[in-house]
């Protein structure tokens, strides 16, 4: 899940009694788990919120290609190179499905890309961290894709049909991505002392930012209640974060590396791991644009887009010429 702090444009939940007849019928269908489809009537706020959420997710896939793409030319074996290229390519594919899902809501891909480039819409905070070593590619697959799956599996059941269906495809591929990340970590942890140190260092740097991916604590998550009522968010940030910690700690144990959290311990009474306080000021700062790579990531996207302008223009011009040729032939 790469959407954080999605603005729903509403300040408080309304009961069925406060809704217009159309809204009430809409909410009742959602409550009955009937999927909303592109041509169905929907409240403007629902539409706007979904566009924001899906587009944040799509942009995250595309920007997310950059930190891992950074290691394609330096992958340590030909097989690892092939797997990484295929993985980053999948992310491009996810971006495509998601832009297409957003387009069913009446926006164009170009508009959405423009929003990204102008800084009007965010992508996940996690991609503003650098990939400094090969182990970071492993850590991203293991932790970042792991966190993403945790968030995305419930979205396969979300109320908006085109988004839910895109999510089903995406989740299948993400679980492969997570396995390849863990496999990289496993090879490093079973390798030389230096390799294991790379793995530990990557975990140290990626652990807390991965926990931040789930968004602010429930108490501070102002838009969650509305998104939950609309069933475009099915589990709370804190619930998902706890699930992720519970799933991931034993995996780190298996690797023989340690989470950088002195307060992490099993709480037998709760049946969950307790973990230390997250530095939310870091999260807020990254969202504001002050993460280590915010400027570089956006600049790389803008450059690719601007450098490609002549290619896109030429493709359009050529298609127009061909269409004209066909038209001329019909006239004769």
């Amino acid at each position, binding site marked *: 899940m790469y959407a954080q702090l999605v603005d729903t444009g509403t300040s408080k939940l309304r009961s069925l009694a406060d809704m217009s007849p159309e809204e009430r019928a809409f909410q009742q269908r959602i409550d009955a788990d009937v999927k909303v489809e592109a041509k169905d009537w929907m409240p403007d706020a629902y539409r706007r919120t979904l566009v924001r959420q899906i587009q944040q997710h799509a942009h995250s896939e595309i920007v997310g290609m950059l930190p891992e793409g950074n290691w394609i030319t330096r992958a340590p074996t030909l097989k690892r190179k*092939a797997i990484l290229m295929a993985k980053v390519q999948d992310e491009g594919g996810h971006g495509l499905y998601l832009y297409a899902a957003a387009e069913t809501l009446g926006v164009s891909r170009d508009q959405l890309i423009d929003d990204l480039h102008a800084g009007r819409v965010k992508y996940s905070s996690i991609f503003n961290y650098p990939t400094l070593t090969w182990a970071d590619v492993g850590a991203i697959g293991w932790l970042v894709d792991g966190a993403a799956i945790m968030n995305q599996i419930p979205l396969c059941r979300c109320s908006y049909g085109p988004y839910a269906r895109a999510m089903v495809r995406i989740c299948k591929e993400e679980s492969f991505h997570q396995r390849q990340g863990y496999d990289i970590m496993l090879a490093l942890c079973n390798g030389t002392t230096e390799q294991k140190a790379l793995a530990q260092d990557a975990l140290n740097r990626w652990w807390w930012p991965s926990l931040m991916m789930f968004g602010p604590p429930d108490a501070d998550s102002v838009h969650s209640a509305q998104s939950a009522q609309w069933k475009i968010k099915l589990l709370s940030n804190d619930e998902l974060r706890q699930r992720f910690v519970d799933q991931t700690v034993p995996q780190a144990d298996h690797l023989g590396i340690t989470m950088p959290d002195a307060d992490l311990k099993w709480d037998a009474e709760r049946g969950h791991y307790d973990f230390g306080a997250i530095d939310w000021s870091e999260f807020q700062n990254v969202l504001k644009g002050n993460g280590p790579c915010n400027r570089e990531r956006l600049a790389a996207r803008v450059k690719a887009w601007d450098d490609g302008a002549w290619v896109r223009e030429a493709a359009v011009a050529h298609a127009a010429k061909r269409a004209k040729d066909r038209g001329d032939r019909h006239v004769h």
Partner: protein
Amino acid sequence: MADAVPPVAMTGDDALLDYLLRLGDSDVVLAQRLGEWVGHGPVLEEDIALTNVGLDLLGQGRMWLTYAGEVEARSCGRGRSEDQLAFLRDGGAYRNLQLVELPNGDFAATMVRQFYFDHMHLSLLRALTGSADARVAEIAAKAVKEVAYHVERSDDWVIRLGDGTSESHMRMQQAVDRLWPYTGEMFAVDAIESALIETGIAADASALREPWLAAIDAVLAEATLTPPTGEWMQGAHGRGGKQGIHTEHLGHLLAELQFLQRAYPGAQW
């Protein structure tokens, strides 16, 4: 440069090893170049498609290099793995064409490089499906299906960009002209290839030039681009990439490709 010019009278498995490196290295080096585009393509669909071509080439390169290692084992008792071959040889021991090691440049240069290479690659692989060496024939048969698609895609882009806007036309004409001198090497046959052509293992690359020219010219014409006429060809006189003589660019490419294996010798990944 060490290993730069192989002995002229190489025969048997030594010659086959060298030939397999020529095939595999060009694939791996071009895949490496295409890998640089990932995340930076002009449009998302093209980003994905370029990666696809890169992945195909990487897969083919791995098959050639793996077989090269087996031939090496057969001939001298100890063969290198695909990774030892890719990551632990210096530039002078690389046998790829100079064309594929040239930097990506803009999308026009990338596509023209691909266009020149793909057309040769397809006819070479088609010829190799009839190789007297069963493994060579088998690998070529697998690769030929993928490369047929590469040709279609490259032709399509050359035509769209050549006959697109005035800017795209200008960029394409420049790329067509600038890369032209690197095409001659693809069809140059040296003593090593001659020996293998005689035994029916290698394809006679010199025989592929005329059909290649005809195919290229037809596409360039449709793209409203002018076919280059320059006769001077880089590396085509027995002193090219296939003999281990490269441009300045290969060293940098290998420095990046080989970094981890060099920095952590002997580690398993």
